[in-house]
């Protein structure tokens, strides 16, 4: 009788999961049927949003994968990436959307490199100062430090760039071409949405190649699986961890540039909310899993875009945060290993 209880609750879980999935599908299909063109334009928007989240989510998952730390300061590193993008692109290089594409493109690439280098370097510094000294402390200590670091970076951002919304350009235009590529049902699909996706995909592929096939990537995987054994193999563990933070930071820098080009403004507390979205994405996909982070981010981006853009029985943007954090809680309760994570810890 008692032994049957866990099985019973498992079955309840399964039934509930299917009910939730079924309701979601009904809602999606309902929206497709009631306004197909609107659905497609929202879908495309969600993909661009998901791409940006993916770049941030990978930073969480890379760091968690190697030292099992949720780096709460990561979202704020991303926020500083948006600020640096504005300063470099608009302030120093004078880009404001009025230049021709052949002027804009190389200068945007310069800005991209600057934002990636800045955030990569900052993330390495954060690790060196705040996390490395606590490497052997109980897990809670670096976690609390990470939260402290998050507030610190946020306030540094506010002190330098102010507490108000920061527009990318004085006119509020994007630097990316605002050209409409095509319209679906009167909703334009702009070139900037496509650029976001076109930059994100090669970055993701390069990252996966780097982790799977290169020597630093193999060192990262080794350290993630067994830190002491890695030391015995002659891997410089400190350098490998620093490299991981550099990589995560650089991705956050790229995300910062894309975000601010896409949304055309930022604010000092952006990293808090967006960081939590990206963290949710990483958990949803299975924290520590690169493909999972990208998949989770795509789903979160789509859910947000659907919720804010669809109209058939849709809660609307007031509910976006509630929905996303409800997903975080549901995943943690019912499938803590995430969509692609392995169910058992196989650290031997």
């Amino acid at each position, binding site marked *: 009788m008692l032994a049957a209880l866990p099985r019973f609750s498992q079955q309840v879980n399964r039934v509930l999961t299917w009910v939730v999935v079924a309701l979601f599908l009904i809602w999606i299909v309902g929206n497709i049927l009631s306004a197909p063109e609107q659905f497609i334009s929202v879908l495309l928007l969600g993909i661009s949003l998901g791409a940006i989240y993916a770049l941030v989510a990978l930073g969480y998952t890379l760091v968690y994968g190697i030292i099992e730390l949720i780096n709460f300061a990561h979202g704020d590193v991303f926020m500083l990436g948006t600020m640096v993008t504005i300063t470099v692109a608009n302030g120093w290089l004078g880009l404001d959307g009025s230049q021709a594409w052949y002027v804009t493109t190389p200068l945007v690439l310069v800005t991209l490199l600057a934002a990636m280098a800045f955030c990569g370097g900052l993330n390495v510094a954060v690790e060196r100062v705040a996390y490395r000294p606590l490497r052997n402390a109980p897990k809670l200590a670096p976690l609390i430090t990470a939260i402290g670091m998050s507030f610190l970076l946020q306030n540094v951002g506010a002190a330098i760039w102010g507490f108000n919304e920061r527009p990318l350009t004085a006119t509020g235009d994007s630097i990316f071409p605002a050209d409409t590529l095509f319209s679906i049902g009167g909703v334009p699909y702009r070139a900037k949405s496509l650029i976001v996706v076109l930059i994100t995909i090669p970055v993701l592929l390069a990252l996966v190649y780097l982790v799977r096939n290169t*020597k630093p990537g*193999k*060192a990262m*995987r*080794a350290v993630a*699986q*067994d830190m*002491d*054994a*890695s*030391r*015995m*193999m*002659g*891997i*410089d563990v400190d350098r490998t961890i620093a490299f991981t933070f550099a990589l995560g930071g650089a991705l956050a820098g790229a995300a910062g540039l894309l975000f601010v080009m896409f949304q055309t403004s930022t604010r000092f507390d952006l990293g808090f909310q967006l960081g939590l979205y990206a963290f949710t994405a990483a958990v949803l996909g299975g924290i520590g899993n690169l493909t999972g982070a990208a998949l989770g981010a795509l789903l979160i981006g789509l859910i947000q875009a659907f919720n804010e853009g669809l109209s058939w029985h849709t809660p609307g943007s007031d509910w976006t945060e509630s929905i996303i954090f409800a997903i975080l809680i549901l995943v943690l309760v019912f499938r803590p290993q995430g969509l692609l994570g392995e169910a058992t810890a*196989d*650290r*031997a």
Partner: protein
Amino acid sequence: MSTNGTPLLELEDVHTYYGTIEAIKGISLQVREGEVVTLIGANGAGKSTTLRSIQGINRPKRGRILFNGKDIVGHPPHEIVRLGISQSPEGRRLFPRMTVLENLEMGAFQRRDRSGVHQDVERVFGLFPRLAERRSQKAGTLSGGEQQMCAMGRALMARPKLLLLDEPSMGLAPVLVERIFEIVTEINSQGTTILLVEQNALMALDVATRGYVLETGVVALTDDATALRSNERVRKAYLGLT
């Protein structure tokens, strides 16, 4: 292999702590080039800590560790590997989600000579033909004996001057234990000096040139392996013989 007498490794009064607990309390020992030296002793005697101190994983609080005459205390482990010390750790500690071949490649992490690394992979597969069959299998799915072979092969991939083996026989069936010790002898005869930590004192003293008996963090006894085998105290306490 004949020994030529120069000490390759020398520990002088090494003290290592875990937090406030002193795990080894002033160990001095020598390993000469070409030897197989064994550290035997009960659980908690400080055998593994000695190896971890040599490797630079745990930093001794006091004492000197000379490798080729140079003090290596305070050097990070990756430099110590580069100097020529590698280890097959207690409990094997393979990378479970990497294949056998990837594990072997990780052992050669410090090396730049690709062709030499390739040769050594073949050499390891020659020593352990079983690993060659399992080369694309994830290390986490190997049997205990195969894992031990993989761990030893991985340590050899660094092409060490001094190989540290920590409990290579642990948890293995008797027939495999014999095979592992045969391979220890074979590796030594190919020119690698070995420091072997074992609880299976009988087998260890069989393959070793000399031995040290550790008791609660200090060297209680040291002698030639043959002399230790006939020593009354060792026979009673570690060989289970009377």
